[in-house]
Structures are given as C-alpha cells and as structure tokens.
C-alpha cells in the first residue's frame, strides 16, 4: 500500500492549510524526514517532512489552494511497489464477511485504473470544491458557513452535519439567526445577506476605481478572531499616563554596560506588565463558560506587525525572566514572525497581550482583547510634556497606556489596581530588576 502524504494539523484551531510550495515533483525519490512541501497555516509557514521513503506520486495537493487538513495530498510508493494510481475512485469497500451484501461503492472499483482524471480524487479537493454531504451543504448555506473552512470527519474527509454544527459552535458570532428549526428555514439568510452586503459595498464605488485583493489566511483569521472578540467580549477601556524618564535613564545605563544586549523600551514594558499581573493575579485570567481560569504564569503575547497583517508571538512566564532574556527572545520571535516561520506553539495561547505603537508616534489608542486573554495593553508614544511639579513647570517624558479589558472576568477596580502596579514598575524601574 502506498503511504498517504497528509496535510497535517499543526495548529489546534487549524481547519485548512495552503500548500505554498512543493520541494519535490512527481516521480522524485524521497526519504523519511526530507522536507517535501511547505504550508501556510492561519498564522505561519511550516515545512512538512516526508512520512515514508520511496517514490512520490500523484501529487494532487495544489500550490496556493486552501485544502482541508487530514486529506492526502500525495502518495509515496515503496521501492519496488507497483504503482497504482491513487487518484480517483479509490474504493474503501471492504469485503464483508457475509458476502451476500454488495457494498455501496462496488461498481466504482474497476474503472479507477484507466480513468484516473475524470473521477473525483480521493482527497477531499475536487474540481467542484469540498466534499460534503447534501445536508452539510444545506446547513452551511443556511448559516453562512464557508465549507472550505470546515474540517470533515467523514470518510475521505467528507464534511457532515456534525462538522458544520461543530464549526457553528466554534464561532457563535457567525450565527446570526437562530439555528434553523430543521423543518422550515427554506432560505439561507446569512450567506445571502453577506453576498448582498458585498454587492452593495462594491456598488458604492466606480467599477475601475479599486483593486480587489483576495483575503489570505492571515487576513481571514484576523477578521474572524477580532470580529468574534468585539461581538462577544464586553470590552471596557482604562487609560493611565506614566512618566518614563526614570525608565529611559535606567535603560541607557543598562545598555551602556554591555554590548551583549540592547534592551528596548518595549522589552521593559513586557517585563513591567508581566510583574504587574504577577502582583495582581486576579487580572491574569481567562473566561470559560463555567469557570475563570486563573493563570499561574504571565505569558505575554506581543503584537508584531508583519507584511499583510500581524501576529502575536508569546513570551512565556515573562514575570520570571530577566530583561536581557526577554530582549533576546523578542528579537528572535520578531525576526521569525516576519518570515512567517513561527511554530504554532509560539503564538497560540498566552494570558495577556501588549500592542505597542509608540514607535509610530500615536498619542493613544485602544486595542481589541484577543481571547483567551482578558486584557491587552496598548502602549502609545513617549512625548515630552510640561507638567507642574512642586509649583514649577517641569519637562517630563510621558506616555499614555490604555488597557482593554474583558469585563466578564476583570472589573474596573481590579483594572485600576493592575494599571497602578504597572505604573509603579515603569516609574520606579529599579523594582523590575530587583
């Protein structure tokens, strides 16, 4: 039996992947562990190794197309194994022990060898798109679910009712109408409405006055996540102004000590925020329907802008790490984020986040909480301001930070408490290094 090369699930919530590049071609000899193709997941690019040694054939996974995970994209034939096309009508009909009972796919068997192209491939990619049951298609239509983003649990990756239900459950925000009462509901409100909205949007502009850019996975993920957050997480926002002069002075002093590191203001923000959450652990939490998860460590997701979007690699247990360690980690994570080479484990999860637009000169902004986080700290630019001190005007470097909070888990007073803890670390930065 030829070994199937499967589009792997490399990320918890990954449903489809896009093969960006094959490194081998039909008929090449491959060994276990050879890198054979690269995929782009929702967030990152990943190289996939060969699962077997032999000759790779029937490469049906196409570059640049969204493919549901778990489906075969090619097959590897062992040395000396007879090549039998795996594309088309490959029947899984088992011979039942009670031979009286012909199987459903029986007639499909003989034609596979001489008619490999016209049959639907046995992977779930076909010319007509995804493999789904009529019921799944109808439900997807009625609820505005994009079947391309649903993972099929049926044979050959076929999408069934339960998969659409799972997809609906996973993103309740997408369900605008009540779940169709199975009987009636002849129309598909969501999907049709969306198409109508799109058409109306286009109609507002002259036909040649814009260029159309198709969404890639990252754009789609950003849109889905943030829309869901804004629609389901009750946000509130609290701002505080902090003085930076002491922190800037300490930074200068530290960086003068050695060429081995170059601590950035952002590194110090990560550390200060992690320590603040360590001190106020009730704010370092995640909401679930039945429980609040109180995290024992502060894992800080740091928003990194990259071409085409953004990603938030995570500095784990940041409250335990020294500034030089945080700094070195951030450099590495940011560099690999830009190349889209982060592993899912490096950007999934986290207990809080920081978005820093200080280097872009903004005076203040509010970010959107990225569940399962309960908080995200928006850091604006440092600005010199004239501030009255002891009856005299003095020039102070100030910065506005705005905390966006999930009110389901964190209340106003708690929010003020953790922000004040942050302010204390920033304004008395020696506390960070003690």
């Amino acid at each position: 039996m030829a070994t199937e090369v499967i589009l792997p699930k490399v990320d918890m919530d990954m449903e489809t992947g896009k093969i960006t590049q094959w490194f081998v071609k039909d008929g090449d000899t491959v060994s276990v562990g050879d890198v054979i193709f690269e995929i782009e997941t929702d967030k990152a690019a990943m190289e996939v190794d060969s699962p077997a040694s032999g000759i790779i054939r029937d490469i049906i996974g196409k570059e640049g197309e969204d493919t549901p995970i778990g489906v075969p994209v090619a097959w590897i034939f062992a040395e000396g194994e007879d090549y039998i096309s795996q594309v088309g009508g490959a029947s899984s009909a088992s011979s039942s022990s009670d031979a009286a009972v012909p199987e459903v796919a029986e007639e499909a068997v003989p034609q596979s060898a001489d008619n490999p192209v016209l049959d639907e491939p046995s992977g779930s990619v076909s010319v007509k798109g995804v493999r789904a049951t009529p019921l799944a298609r109808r439900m997807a239509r009625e609820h505005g679910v994009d079947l391309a983003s649903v993972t099929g649990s049926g044979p050959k990756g076929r999408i069934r009712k339960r998969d659409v239900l799972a997809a609906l459950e996973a993103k309740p925000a997408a369900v605008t109408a009540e779940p169709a009462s199975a009987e009636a509901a002849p129309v598909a409100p969501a999907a049709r409405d969306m198409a109508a909205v799109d058409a109306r949007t286009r109609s507002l502009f002259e036909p040649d006055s814009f260029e159309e850019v198709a969404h890639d996975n990252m754009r789609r993920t950003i849109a889905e996540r943030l829309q869901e957050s804004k629609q389901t997480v009750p946000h509130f926002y609290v701002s505080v102004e902090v003085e930076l002069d002491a922190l800037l002075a300490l930074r200068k002093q530290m960086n003068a000590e050695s060429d081995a590191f170059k601590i950035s203001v952002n590194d110090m923000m990560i550390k200060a925020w992690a320590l603040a959450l360590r001190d106020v652990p009730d704010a370092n939490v995640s909401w679930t329907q039945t429980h609040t998860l109180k995290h024992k460590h502060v894992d800080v997701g740091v928003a990194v802008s990259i071409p085409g979007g953004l990603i938030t690699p995570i500095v784990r247990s940041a409250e335990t790490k020294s500034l030089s360690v945080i700094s070195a980690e951030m450099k590495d994570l940011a560099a690999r984020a830009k190349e889209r080479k982060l592993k899912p484990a490096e950007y999934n999860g986290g207990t809080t986040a920081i978005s820093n637009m200080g280097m872009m000169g903004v005076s203040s902004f509010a970010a959107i909480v990225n569940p399962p986080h309960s908080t995200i700290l928006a850091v604006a630019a440092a600005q010199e301001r004239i501030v009255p001190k002891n009856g005299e005007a003095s020039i102070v470097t100030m910065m506005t930070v705005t905390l966006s909070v999930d009110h389901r888990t964190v209340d106003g007073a708690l929010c003020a408490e953790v922000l004040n803890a942050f302010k204390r670390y920033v304004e008395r930065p020696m506390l960070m290094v003690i």
Partner: protein
Amino acid sequence: MTQEARELSYAIAIREAMGLAMEADPTVFLMGEDVGVYGGAFQVSGDLIDRFGPERVIETPIAELGGAGLCVGAAMNGMKPIFEIQFSDFATLALDQIVNQAAKARFMLGGEVSVPLVVRMPAGSGTGAAAQHSQSLEAWFAHVPGLKVVQPSTPYEAKGMLLAALEDPDPVMVFEHKLLYKMVGEVPEGYYTVPLDKAKVVREGKDLTIVASSIMVHKALEAAEKLTEEGLDIEVIDLRIARPMDKQTIIESVKKTSRLMCVHEAVKTLGIGAEISAMICESEAFDYLDAPIVRLGGTENPIPYNPELEKASVPQVPGIIEAARDLAKGVR
C-alpha cells in the same frame, strides 16, 4: 364489523382472504396449476376446492400463458379472477398477457374496459429450489405502468392486501414470499383491506432509515433490534407496494434520519432500491442526506442450489447489521 385477531399463518391468511372474497362475490374465482385437489404447490388454496367446487377453483394445464389469457379475458368481461402462478419465475411465460394485455387494456380502450385481475405468485429464495424457482422478479412488473405490484410481509398484510387487490379495478401482481408462508401472526377475523398505496413504518427510529420489502422487513427488524445494543435507533419501513410507490413516507423518514439504506432480496443492480435511491435524490429529502445512500440486494448470479451459496446470494441479518452500523456511525 368487529374483528377479533387470531394467530394465523401467512398461507392460511391468504386462503381466508380468497374464501371471504369468493363467499361475498360470485364473480371471484381461483385458477392455477394444482390449486384444486392438491391444494396448491405451497398448500395455499387448501380446501377451497371442497368449499367452492371445481367451477370456481379451476385447475389448469401447465400452460401459464393460456391461463393468464383466459383470466384477462374473464376480467374484461366482468369476472374477478385470482390467477396463481406456481412459482413467480414462471410469470415469464405469461408476460405477454400480463404486460401487453392486462396492463394496457384500460389505456388502449378509452377507459371503457378494466382488467380486475389478481395474480398471486410464490417468490424468493431459501427453499433450495435453485435458479429457476427462486427469483424475485417484482421489479420487472413494477416497471410497467398499468400494473400494481405488492409484496405482503406478514399474515395481516397478506390477507388485507389480497382483499384490497380484489377490490381494485386494475391488475395487481401479488408477490408472496415462500419462506413467509409458515410465518404466524395476528390476523383479524372477517373482511378488511390494507390500502395499496401506503408503505408502513414498522419501527420508529432516528439514526437511519431502512426501507425493506417482503421477507427483508423481518431481517431488517432483527438487525435494528440487535443494533439497539450499540445505541443505534433505526427506523424500518415496510415498502409493501413497489408500484405505486409511497414516496412520501420514505421522504419524511429520510428527512428525519438523514440516512437511507434499501434492502431487498431481488438483484441489487437496476432494482427497486435503485429507484428509491434516485427518487430520494430527486426529492426535497436530498438536502437532508448526511451520508451516501446504501443499497443491499441480491448478488450478480442466478440463485445457486447449494444452500450456503443460496444464503450468500441474498442479504442476511449479519450483513444488514454491518452495513447499517457503518452507515449510521458514519464509516461510509
């Protein structure tokens, strides 16, 4: 008319229906090979010869086409013949009278003539009677507009459907399964009919619909019962009538369960299961299907004489269980 149910065999229930009809209506008569003193090849007519005499229980020579032609002519002239063909396989000999005459007369004669003929035939395998005496040919006749084709699955249906067939103004082909003749079941006394346009949900369930006919109804029920141990809740429909098919009952069931399996003894290819499957795909139930439709039927061979091979040639309970389990659990 109060009807007390008793336990009767399928064969006796049919005999009772014929007796009731002949008592009530002097135009009803029975004709066939060995239906007289021998009591019928499967002892269905029994003592009718003693009760109604040789003028109404008429023996024919071994000449199916002649007997059928005589019955069609009698029917056109106001009689209500019951024509017994000793094995349904031999209906092939009477095809011209049934298909080209009985089925067509009403349509070709401006509706002025009808053919209230009932043809009774023992059908199916399981008796070791080999290839020429074991077939299930109901689909052949169900393909012909103008005929009705029924397959009673219990003594209750056997009596009620035969009486309904005798009331019907058009030719009705009754396929009686040989292995069911000895089956005992509740049968009301007196006259009643089972309508010839309704399938029957014989077991309600929500995970899968099995549409079965004739003896396969019982095999499907046994399989469904067994699968309750695995938590599966299977609906079984007795098709009862192959033509005109009761589409609505099947459609409603499939809309409820989202899964369909057809089980019949006749050869699977181009069989009634194919018709049901296509009918569902053309109906509103298509959009409720959550798995491919599965058909179980006879294998691609004449029924063998060897008893093991004979069994292996038609669906059996273990095979139905396996296929139903796979379908309901989503392996297919």
